[in-house]
C-alpha cells in the first residue's frame, strides 16, 4: 500500500515540484497519473522509489517511510518496486535474456530460479521467441516489453511506468497497456502509469489522478469524464 501524506518537494534550484500532496493507493490497484509537462509526475515517482526525499510530509510504501530510509537501505527497498521508462533503458550489449537475467543476478538470485523466472516473464510479456536477440534488433514495443519483463522479474509488489507508451504508436501503446493489465491480474502487482496519452485512459478506464503545477486537481475512479 502506498500512502502519501502532505508531501511537498522543492528541488535545490528552488523549483516547487510538488505542493502538499496526499493520496492513497491500495495493493493491487491500477492507477493512471496524468498532467501537463512539468507538473510533478516524475517527481512523485522518484519519491516513491527513494531517488528523491520529500522536504516535508511522509511517503509510506508497505509501511516503510521511504523519505527516512537510510542510504544503505534504499537498494533492498527498491527490489520491491519495478520501474519502466519511455526510453526502455536496456543494455545494448546484452541479449534479451541477459537483460532480464541481469536484474536477478544483481540481487543474487540462485541460478535455477533465475533461468526459470526469466523464461516465465519473457513468455508473460510475449517476447519468448526473441530471447537471444539484442535490443537493437527489436521494435520499440518489443523493447518496452523486455523492459517490463526486467521490471517484474524480481516480483515487485508495485510496478511504476513513466510514459511507457511515449515512443509508441496507438496500436502498440494499446498492447502495452493490455500487458500491464494482465500483469496486474496475474501477478497481483500494483500498477502506476504516468501518461500524457488521454486515448489510453479512454480505452482502458481506471482510477485516474490528475496533477497540475504540483497539486492534485482530480482523483477519479474508473477514469471519469476526462
Amino acid at each position, binding site marked *: 500500500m502506498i500512502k502519501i501524506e502532505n508531501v511537498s518537494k522543492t528541488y535545490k534550484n528552488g523549483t516547487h515540484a510538488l505542493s502538499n500532496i496526499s493520496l492513497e493507493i491500495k495493493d493491487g490497484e491500477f492507477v493512471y497519473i496524468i498532467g501537463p509537462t512539468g507538473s510533478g509526475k516524475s517527481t512523485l515517482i522518484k519519491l516513491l522509489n527513494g531517488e528523491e526525499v520529500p522536504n516535508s510530509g511522509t511517503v509510506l510504501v508497505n509501511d516503510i517511510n521511504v523519505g527516512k530510509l537510510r542510504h*544503505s537501505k534504499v*537498494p*533492498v527497498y*527498491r*527490489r520491491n518496486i519495478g520501474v519502466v521508462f519511455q526510453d526502455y*533503458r536496456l543494455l545494448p550489449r546484452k541479449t534479451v535474456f541477459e537483460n532480464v537475467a541481469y536484474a536477478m543476478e544483481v*540481487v543474487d538470485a540462485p541460478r535455477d530460479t533465475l533461468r526459470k523466472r526469466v523464461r516465465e516473464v519473457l513468455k508473460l510479456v510475449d517476447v519468448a521467441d526473441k530471447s537471444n536477440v539484442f535490443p537493437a534488433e527489436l521494435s520499440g514495443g518489443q523493447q518496452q516489453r523486455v523492459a517490463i519483463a526486467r*521490471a517484474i522479474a524480481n516480483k515487485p509488489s508495485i510496478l511504476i511506468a513513466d510514459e511507457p507508451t511515449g515512443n509508441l504508436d496507438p496500436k502498440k501503446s494499446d498492447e502495452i497497456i493490455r500487458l500491464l493489465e494482465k500483469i496486474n491480474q496475474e501477478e497481483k502487482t500494483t500498477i502506476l502509469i504516468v501518461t500524457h496519452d488521454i486515448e489510453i485512459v479512454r480505452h482502458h478506464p481506471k482510477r485516474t489522478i490528475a496533477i497540475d503545477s504540483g497539486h492534485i486537481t482530480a482523483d477519479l475512479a474508473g477514469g471519469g469524464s476526462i
Partner: protein
Amino acid sequence: MFRRLGRHIKEGFLGVGRHFGMALSSSTAVAITLTLIGVFMVLTYNLVLTTNTIESSISLSALIDYDSEDQVNLQRIEGKIKEVNGVSSVTYHSKEDEFDFYVNSNTDPELQEFYEAYRDENPFRDAYIITISDGTMLQEVTRQVEAIPGVYQVYDGGANTYKLVDVLENIRLFGGILVVALAALAIYLVYNTIHITIDNRKDEIWIMRNVGAKNGYVRAPFLVEGIIIGLFGSIVPILIIGGLYYYLYNALQGTLFGTFALAAPFPFLYYLAAVLAGTGILVGFIGSYISVCKYLRIRR
C-alpha cells in the same frame, strides 16, 4: 558467492579492455610512481642501514669528577648511566687507558716517545664510554648523563655529530614526503580513469541501482578494475628495479664507494616486490574507491 566474485572479476577485466587506452595510461602513471617509490625505497633502505651503523657508533665519553666523588662510588655512577634511557652500552676507561689510546693513535714513534714522557702527569681523566641506541637521542642522553653527580663533563664529538644526525633525519623525512606525494598523484590518476569508466557505464549503473543492486555490488567491478590497473602498473617497476639492483650489487660487489655496505639483494628484493605490488594494489583500490563512492554518494 564465488560465482558473484567471478562475475565482478570478469567485469573488472572487461572494463580494462573497454577503456584499454585509459587503463594503460594510468597503469603507466602508477608504474612511473612505483618506480620512483622503488628507487627511493632502495636508497632509503640502504641509507637507514648506513645511518644505523653510523648512529650506533656514535659514542659519548663521560669524565669522572674526583673532586666531589670517591673512587668507591664509581659503581654507582656506572649504574646511574646505564639507567638513562637510550644508553645501549657503558664501558669503563681508566685514565691510563685513555692515555694509551691517545699515544697509540699517533703512528709516529718519535711523537709517541715524546708523549710517553708525560705519563706521570697524565692529563686525562677516568671516563665511561657510552654508546647510544638512537642518534636522535644524543642530546637528551648527554643532558641526563651530565646531571649525574660525579660526572665532570660529557664529550659528544661536538656539533658535527649533531649535524650528521640531523642530515640523516632530514633525508629520511624528505624521502617519506616524496613517496607520499607520488602515491597521492598515482591515486589521483587512477581516480580519473575510474571516473571515466563510471561515466561510460552510467546507464548500466543506473539500471543496477534501479533493480536494487546494493552499493557494494555496484562498486565491486570498478574496484577490481582499479586493482588490476594498480597491480599491472607494479610489474614493470618490480622487474626494472629488481634487475638493476641485482646487477649493480654484483657489479659493485656489495659496497658503495668502498665504504657503505649495500643490503644483500635477497630477501630485500622480495620485500621490495611485495611492497611495490601491495602499493600498486592499494593505490588502484583507493583511487577507484574514492571515484565510485563519490558517484554513489550524489545519487540515492
